[in-house]
């Protein structure tokens, strides 16, 4: 199947955000979705558990069924999806260089959407000590082994992290007959919120809080893990380590491109229309920030698909943008990073996260005067939002801690 040289819209990534936007655009444009995997659908393809699909299909679905339904809906609406295609470079124009079995190829478009998702932080990035045996995996790698290949890489691993995804890792393990021996959390409390989902699993797996992995031992394969906790060092026999969470946008394409990247989110700098620093490029979904649910990403894709539609028709407001500034060093990131006139924007709320547990007052000022405020008690990885103001001007977000 040969790739076209020119389309109206290129969507990079066929996860919920990319497919949400593509489906929205299909009636007014020739839309080509590119995915480097051999099957479309993104991360939900290998999340073999509930709950997916409530917003999109108004029923409870498992990840793979949800991914298939999104793909079917996009194709039925006229979207063309090409898999096994890697985008290797973004150019002004817009134009992208891709490669596939056929070798390199260039595609031009009127607009490009970047929807490349997120990945977890690796063992290496966390500088975890010890040997480097096989059997140290991210949740993503574990899930794709279990749900796509029907395999298990170990039988009694330990799980590092207590984010929502860490509990998905437990579910994945139990599905494949893997019995996690422990869950390790460096912080003093479990990170994930929703206790209703979390607690049943906690009964089955002991949790060690305020504990770190000191080193991983085993030459060919993991044999033991040495932990450092409140009571000093201890050794657990384990044949694997699942390094979960601490997501980062998969925004490699921004490197070496002309697009501005926000070091705080790790994703592209966008405005309230989902528009990047080059107005012919948009971005949606988890490439914008770590990390939201599939449903959230899909809704974001749909909303940004609508603004791209307006963009194709030349109906986007003037490009003049104002920077969003933050005061308070506990603010981890804020999205969008810039704003322009709010009519028909894709975002009606700012999204943000804190980088440590905080208690205080969060407020938003436009051109110096306060527009919104609330008191917050929050922790890292917890969703925080503030309404986008209806008037245009420089925006300042303040966090005053108590």
């Amino acid at each position, binding site marked *: 199947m040969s790739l076209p040289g020119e389309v109206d819209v290129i969507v990079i990534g066929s996860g919920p955000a990319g497919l949400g936007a593509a489906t929205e655009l299909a009636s007014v444009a020739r839309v080509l979705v590119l995915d*480097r*995997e*051999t099957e479309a659908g993104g991360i939900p393809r*290998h999340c073999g558990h509930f709950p997916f699909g409530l917003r999109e299909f108004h029923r409870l679905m498992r990840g793979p069924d949800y991914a298939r339904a999104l793909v079917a809906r996009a194709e039925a609406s006229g979207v063309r999806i090409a898999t*096994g295609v*890697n985008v*290797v470079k973004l150019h002004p124009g817009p134009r992208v260089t891709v*490669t*596939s*079995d*056929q*070798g*390199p190829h260039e595609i031009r478009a009127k607009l490009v959407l970047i929807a490349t998702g997120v*990945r*977890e932080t*690796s*063992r*290496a*990035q966390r*500088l*975890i*000590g*010890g*040997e*480097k045996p*096989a059997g140290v*995996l*991210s949740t*993503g*790698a574990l899930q*794709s*082994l*279990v749900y*796509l*290949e*029907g*395999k*298990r*890489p170990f039988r009694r691993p330990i799980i590092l992290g207590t984010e929502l995804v860490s509990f998905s890792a437990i579910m994945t393990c139990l599905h*494949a*007959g*893997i019995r996690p021996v422990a869950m390790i959390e460096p912080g003093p409390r479990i990170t994930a919120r929703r206790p209703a989902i979390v607690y049943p699993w906690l009964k089955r797996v002991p949790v060690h809080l305020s504990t770190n992995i*000191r*080193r991983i031992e085993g*030459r*060919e*394969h993991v044999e033991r893990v040495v932990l450092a906790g409140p009571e000093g060092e201890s050794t657990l026999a384990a044949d694997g380590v699942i390094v979960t969470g601490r997501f*980062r946008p*998969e925004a*490699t394409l921004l*490197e*070496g491109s002309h697009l501005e990247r926000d*070091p705080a989110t790790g994703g592209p700098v966008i405005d309230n229309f989902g528009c990047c620093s080059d107005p012919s490029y948009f971005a949606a979904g988890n490439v914008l920030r770590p990390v939201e649910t599939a449903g959230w990403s899909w809704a974001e894709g749909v909303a940004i698909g609508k603004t791209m539609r307006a963009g194709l028709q030349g109906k986007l407001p003037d490009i003049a943008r104002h920077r969003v500034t933050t005061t308070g060093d506990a603010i981890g990131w804020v999205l969008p990073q810039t704003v322009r006139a709010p009519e028909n924007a894709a975002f009606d709320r700012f999204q943000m996260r804190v980088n440590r547990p905080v208690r205080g007052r969060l407020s938003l000022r436009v051109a110096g005067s306060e527009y919104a405020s609330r008191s917050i008690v929050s922790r890292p990885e917890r969703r925080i939002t503030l309404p986008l103001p209806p008037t245009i001007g420089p925006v300042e977000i303040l966090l005053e801690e108590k």
Partner: protein
Amino acid sequence: MPNQAPALSGRFDVAVIGAGIVGCAIARRFALAGARVAVIEKAVDILDGSSKGNSAILHTGFDALVGSLEHSCIASGYAEYLSIHGRLGLPLIRSGALVVAWTEEEEAILPALIEQAHQNGVTDVETLSATDLRAAEPGLSARARGGFRVPREFLIDPWSAPFAYLLQACQNGAEILRGAEVTGGCRAGDWILETTRGTVRAGLVVNAAGLWGDLLDEKLIGRRDFHIKPRKGQFVVYDKPAAALASHIILPVPNKVTKGVVVCRTAFGNLLVGPTAEDQDDREHALLVSEMLAFLRRRGEEILPGLKDHAVTAIYAGLRPATEFKDYQIRLHDGLSYITVGGIRSTGLSAALGIAIHVEDLARLALTPPTAPAWPKVSNISEFGARDWQCEGNGGVACHCELVTRREILAALEGPLAARSLAGLKRRTRVTMGRCQGFYCSAELSRLTDGRFDRAMAEVAE
């Protein structure tokens, strides 16, 4: 239990024990000279000891001990690499190096180091002021006081080079026995080496056992002339965008113990910081220690302040086979047809081809070289040459971070040096070595490698 049946049939002119960088180069040299060569490796894969964790630099030997064997091996090995890398398809990144003084004391040593470089035949070094340094390397910290440039220090691919040496040996008749530990041996005219996989008969034995060299000498010839004192080096590797921060190899002023922490690009387009120098008794385990890795990050940021905004992609540690001596320990044991190649502690990658020349000279075997020796060309996995993903019919990309194609992966699972573990496949192709560390490609890799590894990446879940 040692197996008494022959592991490889017939008589070999040379048995090389150890398929590290040095063993691979020696095997190549003898095979090209016309010898029938056996290579015996304890691990299931080649390059599994010291050779798996170095800094991937082709040194000129400018700072070697003047008049040392190490220096002469580096000089001749360097020259041979330059003359053969193109034919073997090996990359050469002409980065040059800067030696940088960070303190007044270090600055005071610079003239002596330059003099040493001159004595070592490296006469093209250029003295640089603090201003010159920043002009040469704008990302360098303003704390750099002065230094000099060594224009011909280069970067190479630490995996493909020894792999190509051994592949060329194999294509010229050498045989490789992997997963075979030498347990003993005796000499009755020829050597009969006992291994865990059977015996090997050879005229000459070359001990290139690296970290185990002294113990192997004791086992085979009943004496040891040196003691291995493993020195651990830990490294952090930054993601590719960081490579834009420095074009030269940035070397510190060396002290008596170590060359110190180096910052340099890699052939794969990353930037590395390391090594540490930590003495230990353990020859087997090179443990990564979080605090030392964090120290390397800080040290890296002191040298290149821009590094603070960059992500670490990989971490690794290696053991250098240091001894109580400064120089290499290479000697022919008279009357025993046995050559020890020991103490190749930190410059092995640069010196390997030169060590091989020296060992061939010591051996003085009467051999007839093949009239038309085979010259295999290895496929390029560095960022400094055409990659398979840029060609048609590559099967598509399986490892997205490093753009490794299915065709590259399948090729690495074939042939006399086929990868038999994920670690081996990583070295040959770079799969999972990128920023995601296997997040995206592990599942497919487990399928592509089904039935190929000694231990599968994952078992079938019932």
